[in-house]
């Protein structure tokens, strides 16, 4: 959906009217401007004071292979994306950098949450940030050679030496992983702290996450999360897969969200290509997305209960999730990673009898949810374990870039489906649940209510499923329509090229943010007018949440850490990409 929003040039905030600032038009309508490197820090600080309090994203682009270079482009571009909740306005700033070892002043003094983002840019692009307190690699192992998202870094195993891991190398890597308290401002001898590695092989971390705890008894003095164990170069792969063949990779980012990951990607490509999606496809997409939201929340519900020691709920909730996956399987053929959305629609029409399956589920689920309220949410031990744990205020949430249920649990009624309607969400009726306490229990309350709201949306889809096409007739739709290929040669050639090479998407850039299962999920795509993306940036939902972990855990006890981890609801594939 292309938003009918103000022209980018007019929408630029006053802080950006100074000379030297060059505006840029983008396909997504986000006001975008190039700012000289020397002024970027002050400009960003000023914008923050002006109300852009949310640093939505901070990433970079290697521009050295670019053919479309209309803008004041250097070798590297660092992209800052700010957001203002009060005005529902955002702005994208770009800085052109030259040379092989570019550098910028750090933004961590303005936004503490810039810490991990800058580490990621350093890790991936080799752009250094002066004044950054701990500019170490974050996604790649410490001993890695090169910066993977640079265009000259190999993307395929065939471009590299065969992989070998001799014992000495393994010992070296293992040693590089050893926690060094000094790096994090902790003294071992004087403080008499116990340093405990939690994860990556730990049942409570929900995957390969490592948190190093500095403990005084069982009280957490400091927590240092370490991510990257689940990094699979999802963004790098976007640069070598065609627009179409990248879709299955998105499923694997938030692997509990299934097609919910396809959505922002497909929407962003559709923006770039100017594709309008037919009604029926829109509603099918919404229905599948909301089913996956319920499935994801159910996994969270069960595992969260298990994190605080309740054994049984997870079995009930996985049983329910299984019912959703049965519907998904009936519609898509796949279960966890259906890769069902296509550029311009969905892969196929709904099968016969889908409505019966969905209706059965909608009738079945509410009673189960009432049972769970009794079993989990009203359980006094559960409440004792989660109330007042991992608490943060609304200001802190915005400051640290929290989105999704974690933000709504602080009292801000902000749902991107409602505030920035996409994919036809504006025609559905649903409430945006909120809570006020901002603790683990409040986050749970919000998610539980969201399951009910998603059920409402699915019911509306069921009752008002429009007739019509499930895929657009736009020429860039993938896979292209085949009906007329046997009648005229142009269609045949077009079909052949689009299937074998992939569609050629016009040069430009577009961001699509969606209300994902765990927060705001954004796909920022840059096209250089080719058959694949020049840069695919996945603004993941839980990366900033994970960064906030120390903030939430300090002063609490080891069991609380697990309750907090459960309440964040993260997927490490999404954190690490």
């Amino acid at each position: 959906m292309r938003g009918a929003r103000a022209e980018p040039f007019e929408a630029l905030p006053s802080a950006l009217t100074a000379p030297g600032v060059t505006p840029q038009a983008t396909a997504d309508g986000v006001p975008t401007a190039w700012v000289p490197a020397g002024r970027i820090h002050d400009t960003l600080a000023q914008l923050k004071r002006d109300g852009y309090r949310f640093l939505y994203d901070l990433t970079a682009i290697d521009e050295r292979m670019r053919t479309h270079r209309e803008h004041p482009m250097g070798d590297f571009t660092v992209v800052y994306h700010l957001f203002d909740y009060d005005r529902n306005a955002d702005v994208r700033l770009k800085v052109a950098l030259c040379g092989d070892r570019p550098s910028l002043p750090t933004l961590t003094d303005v936004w503490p949450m810039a810490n991990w983002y800058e580490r990621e840019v350093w890790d991936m692009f080799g752009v250094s940030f002066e004044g950054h307190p701990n500019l170490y690699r974050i996604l790649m192992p410490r001993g890695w050679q090169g910066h993977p998202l640079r265009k000259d870094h190999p993307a395929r195993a065939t471009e590299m030496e065969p992989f070998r891991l001799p014992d000495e190398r393994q010992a070296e890597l293992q040693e590089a992983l050893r926690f060094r308290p000094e790096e994090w401002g902790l003294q071992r001898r004087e403080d008499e702290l116990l340093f405990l590695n939690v994860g990556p092989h730990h049942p409570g971390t929900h995957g390969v996450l490592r948190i190093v705890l500095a403990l005084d008894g069982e009280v957490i003095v400091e927590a240092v999360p370490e991510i990257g164990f689940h990094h699979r170069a999802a963004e790098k792969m976007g640069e070598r897969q065609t627009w179409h063949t990248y879709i299955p990779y998105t499923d694997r980012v938030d692997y509990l969200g299934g097609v919910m990951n396809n959505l922002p990607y497909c929407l962003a490509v559709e923006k770039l290509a100017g594709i309008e999606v037919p009604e029926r496809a829109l509603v099918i997409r919404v229905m599948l997305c909301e089913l996956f939201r319920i499935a994801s929340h159910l996994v969270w519900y069960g595992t969260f209960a298990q994190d605080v020691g309740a054994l049984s709920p997870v079995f009930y909730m996985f049983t329910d999730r299984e019912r959703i996956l049965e519907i998904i399987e009936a519609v898509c053929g796949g279960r966890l990673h259906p890769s069902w959305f296509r550029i311009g629609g969905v892969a196929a029409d709904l099968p016969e009898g889908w409505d019966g399956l969905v209706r059965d589920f909608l009738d079945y689920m509410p009673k189960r949810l009432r049972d769970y309220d009794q079993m989990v949410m009203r359980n006094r031990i559960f409440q004792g374990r989660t109330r007042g744990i991992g608490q943060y205020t609304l200001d802190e949430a915005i400051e640290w870039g929290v989105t999704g249920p974690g933000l709504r649990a602080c009292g801000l009624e902000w749902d991107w489906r409602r505030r920035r309607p996409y994919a036809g969400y504006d025609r559905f009726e649903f409430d945006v649940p909120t809570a006020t306490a901002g603790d683990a229990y409040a986050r749970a309350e919000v998610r539980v209510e969201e399951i009910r709201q998603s059920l409402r949306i699915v019911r509306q889809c069921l009752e008002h499923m429009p007739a019509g096409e499930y895929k657009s007739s736009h020429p860039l739709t993938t896979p292209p329509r085949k009906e007329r290929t046997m009648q005229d040669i142009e269609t045949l050639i077009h079909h052949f090229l689009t299937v074998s090479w992939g569609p050629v998407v016009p040069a430009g850039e577009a961001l699509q943010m969606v209300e994902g299962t765990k927060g705001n999920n954004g796909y920022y795509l840059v096209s250089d007018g080719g058959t694949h993306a020049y840069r695919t940036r996945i603004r993941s939902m839980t990366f900033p949440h994970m960064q906030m972990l120390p903030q939430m855990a300090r002063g609490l006890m080891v069991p609380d850490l697990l309750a907090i981890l459960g309440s964040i609801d993260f997927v490490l594939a999404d954190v690490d990409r």
Partner: protein
Amino acid sequence: MNESYVSLLVLAAVALGLGTVILMLNGLLGPSKPTASKLDTFETGNEPEGDARQRFSIRFYLVAILFILFDIEVVFLFPWAVLFKDYVAAGLGTFMFVEMAVFVGILAIGLAYVWRKGALEWD
């Protein structure tokens, strides 16, 4: 020697023997293939930083002190409890009751003191 204690000794001997046999059986039946990672400490897949045997938080020590205080006082209640009925029968019930009420009262004051001092709070 009381005969019941012989039975106890027999039980102890059999239980100990059983434990030893099971452990030795495990040693006989099980393989022995030490590898580098098997010989490592379990710390969820990391090289540990710092030793596991180091000075530890005072809070646990506090619990031990509380235990010693209260458990010893509770031990004083045991003989009193078992003989209380006999005292009641002998007409000394009221005296013994008041006696113990004073003792438990002191115990309760001790608990209240510890409570107020915050020794029962973990952090």
